[in-house]
């Protein structure tokens, strides 16, 4: 089916495209063409140049050198050539409804009754990509969960919007979606490519790349280092091409027993419990109350009025823009904001101690910057996340709450953070870790599975497997079906 389109005129062709930001070569001479029917898996480290490449293709940036053309349509602009982008950082307007958000990128919807047309179009698109999505076209976006917002954004990407989409770029589209919804998306991508569309699929999840991509492009330091059909890659060879030292097998560590932990340090109304030194996982389908449970737990254990020298609980945000990053500040100030009282004398910030802490954590967690005085927004998303980790780990807090903190973080960093969490847990710190990635939850000592805002199962020891977690996430729904 796919081969019928393989020899068609490329939808987009890049010829030695370059992009420089001052002295930084974000993209260093990339040649590439994407034909109808192709699904390109685009992989690489944080900062390898994936986002720059995407922005050249969708017209967000103009190339410094070389050319970007759209031979199949003969158009000069990406938008009229049918190129669409769905970004990892959600870009919907929260105060508008789902249908109104479609209107923003669909300027042909005008005149009386445009809302009706918009409603029909977005619902049709949602139905096509995510059957049984349960999202209303008139719901305002701020009342949707983060997973539902991502679904809407993807549906807008695939919606007709006057002319058919020819190339859809999906940047980490599944980072907030649970496995079932992600499968629906992958199925839709396969269908879309079989019908003659093309997709660029950026993901840190290897399984999905192998599942859906016809070709894989590996980027490193602004260059394409490999561009081959998926069948010629194995997981190991792909990771090697990206330039990792090889992912260590984290299962090597012997699973710790209940007797390895200290006394119970936490017991919430929801039924969450945690012992000293334990890593607690929160699992289940996205949007089933895990994030809310963690936020409630944090708010009820900390005060809006007092902050002692040693607060016993810290929070690592996953939704960086809403919950974590202080956008006007430098990396250093973002990193140290929670630990200032620890070193302050008579209310004055100890700036030398602050500098030492920042320099120490910059190396320990590997933040890619020349200078911690640079603005936090100069970092890529994954590196911003590292700053938020450093903020929490640098404190003296004994309980660390993590609300899906690995969104958009590359494989190498994830491994570093896993190791760091293990080490810190061994010194007696307790972690509560919500993740949408089952693989991460499986590294925990004990797992609570959430369903419909309540805990549906508590798994320990060898019961913590992907199957058991999925079973607990879906059980009742299947029984009632």
């Amino acid at each position, binding site marked *: 089916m796919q081969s019928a389109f393989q020899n068609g005129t490329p939808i987009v062709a890049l010829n030695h495209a370059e992009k420089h930001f001052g002295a930084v070569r974000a993209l260093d001479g990339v040649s590439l063409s994407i034909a109808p029917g192709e699904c390109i898996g685009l992989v690489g480290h944080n900062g390898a140049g994936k986002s720059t490449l995407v922005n050249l293709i969708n017209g967000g940036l103009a190339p410094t050198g070389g050319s970007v053309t759209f031979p199949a349509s003969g158009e000069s602009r990406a938008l009229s050539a049918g190129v669409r982008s769905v970004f990892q950082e959600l870009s919907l307007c929260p105060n508008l409804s789902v249908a109104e958000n479609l209107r923003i990128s669909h300027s042909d919807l005008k005149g009386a009754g445009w809302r009706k047309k918009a409603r029909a179009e977005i619902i049709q698109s949602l139905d096509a990509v995510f059957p049984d999505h349960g999202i209303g076209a008139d719901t305002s976006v701020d009342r949707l969960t983060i997973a539902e917002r991502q679904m809407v954004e993807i549906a807008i990407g695939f919606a007709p919007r006057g002319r058919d989409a020819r190339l859809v770029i999906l940047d980490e589209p599944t980072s907030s979606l649970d496995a079932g919804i992600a499968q629906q998306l992958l199925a839709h991508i396969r269908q879309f490519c079989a019908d003659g569309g093309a997709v660029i699929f950026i993901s840190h999840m290897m399984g999905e790349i192998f599942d859906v991509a016809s070709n894989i492009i590996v980027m490193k330091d602004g260059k394409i280092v490999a561009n081959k059909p998926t069948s010629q890659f194995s997981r190991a060879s792909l990771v090697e091409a990206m330039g990792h030292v090889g992912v260590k097998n984290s299962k090597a560590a012997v699973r710790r027993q209940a007797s390895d932990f200290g006394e119970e340090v936490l017991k919430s109304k929801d039924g969450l419990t945690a012992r000293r030194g334990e890593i607690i996982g929160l699992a289940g389908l996205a949007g089933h109350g895990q994030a809310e449970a963690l*936020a409630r737990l944090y708010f009820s254990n900390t005060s*809006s009025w007092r902050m002692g020298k040693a607060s016993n609980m810290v929070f690592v945000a996953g939704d960086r823009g809403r919950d974590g990053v202080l956008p006007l500040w430098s990396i250093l100030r973002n990193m140290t904001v*929670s630990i200032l009282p620890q070193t302050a004398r008579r209310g004055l910030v100890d700036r030398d101690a602050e500098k030492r802490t920042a320099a120490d954590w910059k190396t320990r967690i590997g933040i890619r910057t020349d200078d911690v005085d640079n603005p936090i927004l100069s970092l890529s998303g994954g590196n911003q996340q590292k700053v938020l980790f450093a903020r929490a780990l640098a404190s003296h807090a004994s309980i660390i709450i993590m609300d899906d903190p690995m969104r958009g973080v590359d494989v190498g960093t994830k491994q570093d953070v896993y190791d760091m969490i293990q080490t810190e847990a061994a010194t007696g710190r307790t972690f509560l870790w919500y993740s949408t990635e089952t693989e991460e939850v499986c590294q925990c000592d004990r797992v609570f599975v959430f369903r419909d805002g309540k805990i549906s199962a508590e798994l320990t020891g060898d019961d913590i497997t992907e199957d058991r977690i999925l079973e607990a996430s879906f059980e009742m729904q299947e029984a009632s079906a």
Partner: protein
Amino acid sequence: MPIVKFILSRTWIWSWVAAAGAFMMVMALTQGRGASELAYAALSFGAFAAIVGLGQMLVITLGPGNVDLSIPATMTLAGTLALKTMGSDPNTAILGFTVAIGVGILAGMMNFALIYLLRLPPIIATLAASLIFQSIAIWSNRGLRIKPPEGLADFATGRTFGLPNVALVGLGLSILVWIVLERTVFGRWLLAAGQNLRAARLAGIPVEFVRATTYITVAVFASIAGFFLSSFSGGAALNMGQEYLLTSIAVVVIGGTSIAGGMSNVPGVWGASLFMFLVVSMLNSYGLGAGVRMMLTGTIIIGIVIAASTRRTRA
């Protein structure tokens, strides 16, 4: 030219350039006569605008929607009650000052109680509170104009080392605010809360404590300004704070503080306060009527705000 670049990168420089420009315009008319008198007057009157402006700046730094509209009423109430307590008796200045500070603390607590307990938007809460403050001032004043004690009046209108005493008070408060913002943990908390309240709370910052302290501080600053203004002008008047409603906000914005919160600018408040006084003197000395003067003042403020905001988006 690293020094030039450094200076141009400071947002406060523009309010000082504007103030200098207005000063030159007046001097052009008088052919340079009365330069030191004009500077002295600008420092005296500008000091009151700067003191209330510093308080307003801290509140505006708390983020969108945060503003204190009760500044004029708090100034009036503090001036009225302080003068009434002192009753023109000698050696009561300290007592009067204490009363003024006390009024400020209570007014700030009242404002924040309305905001926090009744969940009112700060604009509504402080406007409502200002009606109460103004009513108390009218009720306790009963049309009497009590003179300040002689020593205090002399201090408020006097000078030290050639500078007006009120300007020195304003300078002292500015340095205090600058230290708090730049060097203390509390200052960091305030700036963080102004950027993203939820993120600040999740980073462990006691945000309600920060907000309460800030609303009390702005009221205390307004009270200090009201206390010295009534001593300076020979007694408290019920409309003495009126012009400071717009002024307190204008000096913050012209001074380069971000209206979106999270970023303060102390030197800019001073430049803008001097500018606001000098613009009025300039229009006066060109012999324009009150109506034209107010219109031009408004136009100039709008122009500066537009210029400042476009410059910042480009940066």
